[in-house]
């Protein structure tokens, strides 16, 4: 549980973050969105005290984050940034081992952890462990950056536009990986982005920031249905609303009994992807398959249209 209590950060006369109070539930993904200069990066950097608030308290699991020295706090919190920030003079394995080394883990434990993480991120430890960051592609560097942030098994992971520098295809893959990893470790994630698509894809809850204030902090559904301000509405994009609504839910949640023609889609795709497939293949309904390949039912265009309508 991370609690922000009346957090304000001023530089001179300008308040970059203004009286923010919110609570982030454990084991969830919270995405902070906003235009550039809205204070979103400053807000999360106050969690690991890269920035000190002018006033207010941030509690992590009930404990004021100023109750331990900065460096100790930061070793407990994962931190991944845009442009990865890997140490160019250290190998991939050494980079990932950074925090465990600082914490004084013994070598065999560090080695096992590095191998586990590289494997989890689909990087062969024998091949990549001894490489230097510049020998990797952008997507691989980004994965190593996240692996380094997770190496000491933090309960909390802060991510500042971690996928900002990636091309769309690799970014989608990285987001999928992040969801899988969040499920695997149960890590609480606070992620900053300006990409609404990314926010709706990843978030359990979204905090929208505008001029230093959190103007709405809500689940994606709630935000779509009841945007708190015209700014939130604009950020979501009025013409995108039905599709964003479908993007939140999995295809499996809209399955009805029965059969349908043609190739099936996987139940863990989003309803938006299912709609897209229906429209593109010109079908009224399609079969839905579980991860083991068995057909669990059908998904119809009608039901998706109903689900895309504004909830009452």
């Amino acid at each position, binding site marked *: 549980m991370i609690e922000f209590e009346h957090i304000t950060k001023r530089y001179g006369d300008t308040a970059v973050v203004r009286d923010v109070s919110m609570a982030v539930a454990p084991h969830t993904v919270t995405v902070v969105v906003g235009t550039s200069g809205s204070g979103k990066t400053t807000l999360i950097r106050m969690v690991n005290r890269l920035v000190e608030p002018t006033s207010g308290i941030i509690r992590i699991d009930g404990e004021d984050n100023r109750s331990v020295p900065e460096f100790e706090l*930061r070793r*407990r919190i994962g931190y991944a940034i845009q442009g990865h*920030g*890997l*140490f*160019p003079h250290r190998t991939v394995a050494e980079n990932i081992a*950074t925090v465990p080394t600082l914490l004084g883990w013994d070598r065999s434990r560090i080695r096992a952890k590095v191998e586990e993480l590289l494997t989890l991120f689909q990087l062969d430890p024998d091949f990549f462990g001894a490489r*230097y960051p510049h020998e990797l592609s952008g997507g691989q560097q980004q994965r190593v950056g996240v692996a*380094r942030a997770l190496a000491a098994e933090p309960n909390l992971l802060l991510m500042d536009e971690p996928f900002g520098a990636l091309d769309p295809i690799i970014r989608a893959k990285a987001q999928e990986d992040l969801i899988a990893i969040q499920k695997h470790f149960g890590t609480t994630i606070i992620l900053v982005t300006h990409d609404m698509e990314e926010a709706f894809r990843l978030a359990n809850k979204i905090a929208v920031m505008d001029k230093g204030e959190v103007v709405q902090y809500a689940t994606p559904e709630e935000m779509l249905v009841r945007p708190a301000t015209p700014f939130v509405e604009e950020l979501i994009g009025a013409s995108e609303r039905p599709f964003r609504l479908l993007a939140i839910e999995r295809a499996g949640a809209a399955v009805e009994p029965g059969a349908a023609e043609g190739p099936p889609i996987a139940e863990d795709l989003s309803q938006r992807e299912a709609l897209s497939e229906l429209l593109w293949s010109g079908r009224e309904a399609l079969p839905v398959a579980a991860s083991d390949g068995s057909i669990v039912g059908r998904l119809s265009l009608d039901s998706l249209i109903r689900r895309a309508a504004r909830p009452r």
Partner: protein
Amino acid sequence: MPSPFRFLRLATILRLTALMLLLVFLLLPGWFEPLLKPLVQENAPAIYNRGSLFWLTVLHLRTVFVATLAATFVAVSLAILVTREAGAEFLPLSRSLVNIGQTFPPVAVLALAVPIYGFGENPTLIALFLYGLLPIFENALTGLTSLPPAVMEAARGTGMTERQRLLRIELPLALPVILTGIRLSVVISLSTATIGSTVAAKTLGEVIIAGLQSNNLAFVLQGGFIVAVLAVLIHDALQALERSLAGRAHV
């Protein structure tokens, strides 16, 4: 079957030849007497005969080494100090001090130092030390202030203390640039050290000065030749070291 020498590029062969030539000249200068004989008047010695060329070279190198070591220590410490948050206000002051060291001619330093420290090696060490500070300081400053911001942010974010960041991230990344400064300083010192012999420091300048005094062109040439070859070889060796460090870190 590939030749075992296939890795040796022409430049490397030239450097090795120069090194061999230098060593032979220093240890067995007599071999070169016929070569230098035409340069001197009859009955004058063609090879320096008032001391061992080899020992003069060793002492010359020692003087340069000690002066550069001290300059490196002071300049790098100063650069570290003024790039810390607490020391930032000393940056302009350190810059001026180091600049004065560079603009003050070494000959003038010698002239001022002799009355205080007497004849011998010390005035030369002081002159070389002051003269060598600037390139090392400026390069260390550049190296420490031009580190990639994302890397520094990550270093803080992973929970390194200020000391750990300096020793594990900043200095290793700045090392190639610092080495460039040291290289410049060494090359300047190697040639500047010769003037130390005007105040009785044991350097290769002794050979050149003896040549000038006795109108012996062969002396002047051999003193100059040894210093020049040393400068080229040390320059190249340090440059190779920088490249291998920079290449590994890709900075």
